[in-house]
């Protein structure tokens, strides 16, 4: 049984990520000041929360184009993220990366990459680096269901297996690659078979249940820290909004409204809220206060970003070489 404080923290984290991403969505076309692609994780928050809350600050994560939630749950700085979306100087990349290049060294967010599967080996390499340095830290690789179609996933998994690296692959299966459903891209077999074929331990969890994700991750982390090697966690979940951008896109017809509603009825934030309420761990007033605090934090962060300076154009050529 998870510690009540952690159960609350999981809820708080998901709620915060949800509200931040909704604020990004709401404001995206309001004034068109976030001029970069955005890939929202709304609907998938249980994965980032469940995984990251089972990690230490010095553990490392790498993520993908859909990385805001991972960055935030791992402790990435909100101001730096929003400034990055706005192309501003205090952005985590100084405005050079946009939403697909988030990192926060202090929080252990090592990198995100916009090229599908490109950060997977980098995460495995982080695990190698940790191991070489004699640390008991672990690396987590967040990946989408499409990224196992890229060969580099397999190359990375194989190496993680043979070197027993302290790495955890967290595959968020949201059933789609952009608008293309899984069954058009992969055969009908459990995705975890891929892990076993590479000699990796694997776990499948309800990716909308933050506690299930947390428990699975805690197990995988213990395995990794003990030197027993890598685990592949498959988390089934669903993206609510369009692949890239702020809107809903069910009107495009690539998925059914029934499917969408089925998943939405299993809202990870709501599920945990009800669970906590049922367990008398969260009262309505406290919940409202939490939401208000978060809303306030978000408003301040957007104010910060909107008022932050742009990077000086004369610096555009800096830092090509160290």
């Amino acid at each position: 049984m998870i510690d009540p404080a952690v159960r609350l923290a999981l809820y708080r984290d998901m709620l915060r990520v949800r509200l931040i991403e909704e604020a990004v969505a709401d404001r995206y076309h309001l004034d068109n000041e976030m001029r970069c692609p955005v890939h929202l994780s709304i609907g998938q928050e249980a994965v980032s929360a469940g995984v990251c809350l089972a990690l230490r600050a010095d553990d490392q994560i790498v993520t993908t184009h859909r990385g805001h939630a991972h960055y935030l749950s791992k402790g990435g700085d909100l101001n730096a993220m929003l400034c990055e979306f706005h192309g501003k100087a205090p952005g985590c990349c100084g405005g050079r990366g946009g939403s697909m290049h988030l990192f926060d060294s202090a929080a252990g967010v090592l990198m995100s990459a916009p090229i599908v599967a490109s950060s997977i080996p980098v995460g495995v390499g982080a695990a190698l680096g940790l191991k070489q340095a004699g640390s008991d830290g672990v690396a987590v690789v967040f990946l989408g269901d499409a990224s196992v179609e890229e060969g580099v996933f397999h190359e990375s998994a194989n190496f993680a297996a043979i070197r027993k690296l302290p790495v955890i692959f967290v595959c968020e299966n949201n059933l789609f690659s952009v608008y293309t459903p899984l069954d058009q891209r992969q055969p009908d077999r459990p995705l975890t078979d891929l892990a076993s074929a590479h000699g990796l331990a694997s776990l499948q969890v309800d990716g909308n249940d933050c506690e299930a994700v947390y428990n699975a991750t805690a197990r995988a982390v213990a395995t990794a820290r003990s030197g027993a090697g890598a685990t592949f966690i498959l988390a089934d979940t669903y993206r609510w909004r369009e692949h890239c951008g702020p809107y809903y896109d069910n009107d495009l017809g690539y998925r059914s409204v029934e499917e969408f509603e089925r998943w939405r009825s299993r809202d990870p934030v709501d599920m945990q809220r009800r669970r906590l309420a049922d367990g008398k761990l969260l009262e309505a007033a406290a919940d409202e206060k939490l939401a208000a605090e978060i809303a306030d934090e978000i408003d301040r962060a957007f104010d910060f970003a909107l008022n932050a300076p742009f990077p000086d154009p004369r610096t555009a050529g800096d830092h090509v070489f160290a």
Partner: protein
Amino acid sequence: MSSPDTADGQRLITGAEALREAMDQCMAADDRVFLMGEGAADPKGIFGTTSGLVETYGPDRVIEMPVAENGLTGIAIGAALMGRRPVMVHQRVDFALLALEQIFNNAAKAHYVTAGKHTVPLVIRMIIGRGWGQGPEHSQSLESVFAHFPGLKVVLPSTPRDAKGMLIAAIRDDNPVVMLEHRWTHYTTGDVPEELYEIPLSGPSHVRKGNDVTIVATSYMTYEARAAVDAMQAAGVSADLFDMRVLQPLDLGPVIESVRRTGRLIMADVGWKSFGAGAEIVASVVEQAFADMKAAPVRLGLPDHPTPSSRSLVPDFYPYSGDIVAATANITGAADRLGPVVAALAEARAQRPVDVPNPDFRGPF
């Protein structure tokens, strides 16, 4: 190059529509032609360039790819070796970085290494991203990289008319053809014939005629160069402008002839300047026209750093018409007359956002 800004009695469609039409007509005409791409059969149809095709030709001829660029390129090559005619599309050229081994070895060399017995009639369409903060890995260009490997044809259409005609020619060509489409050229409009026609995959198009300087541009830079040339015309400086729409095979004949006449060369690259396509063009022209040159050649192109996302960092990254006029001013000695032209272009540019192809564009991709 047909002039996309003419109108009456013409058939004006966008670059994206032109590409879609070419594909549709080629698939109707030859059932060996098929399409593969991530998004080829999805509701957005690769920026509209493949929309509706899956409805007409079915999922066996419009293959929605798994996200596996290297493998699927090899698969396309295998099918091509068997006499099929695949067209593969990548929404960003950057994704094709994963497939270069297949492209450079199996596609580019099969004909040569078999002493002509094998052919790989494969077309790979790749989109060069720009704008809306795409950042460093959704905005590369890479034409000089593809052009370095013997055996690949490398084309960069800039107008809708060229896009259609060159795609048709590419599909009918027995060689692997790499087609780089600057994203902003998808949004341009131009007069496009309805029928199936080919624009031959050789030589530049001669966009403007003039005597004071020769300007060579690739892809989208043709638009900036044209704006520059037209603005200079009014100030009494006339430029010969070539759209170097085919980089391999490289036919510099018309450019060299022009430089022999004008004595001056400005090269405007769509990609990075260093080790870029313009380096080859400038080096080759100088090797052959040195004796007639009156001034050092000038190259414009992206400076030696990755593409930053923030729109505040890109104004000096992407050269524009004003830079071309300024370069002309420098080497022709017409600084007096051209100074005001540069100022006017700079002024006009300051009014427009730098990160969108047109004022209505709203991302997010």
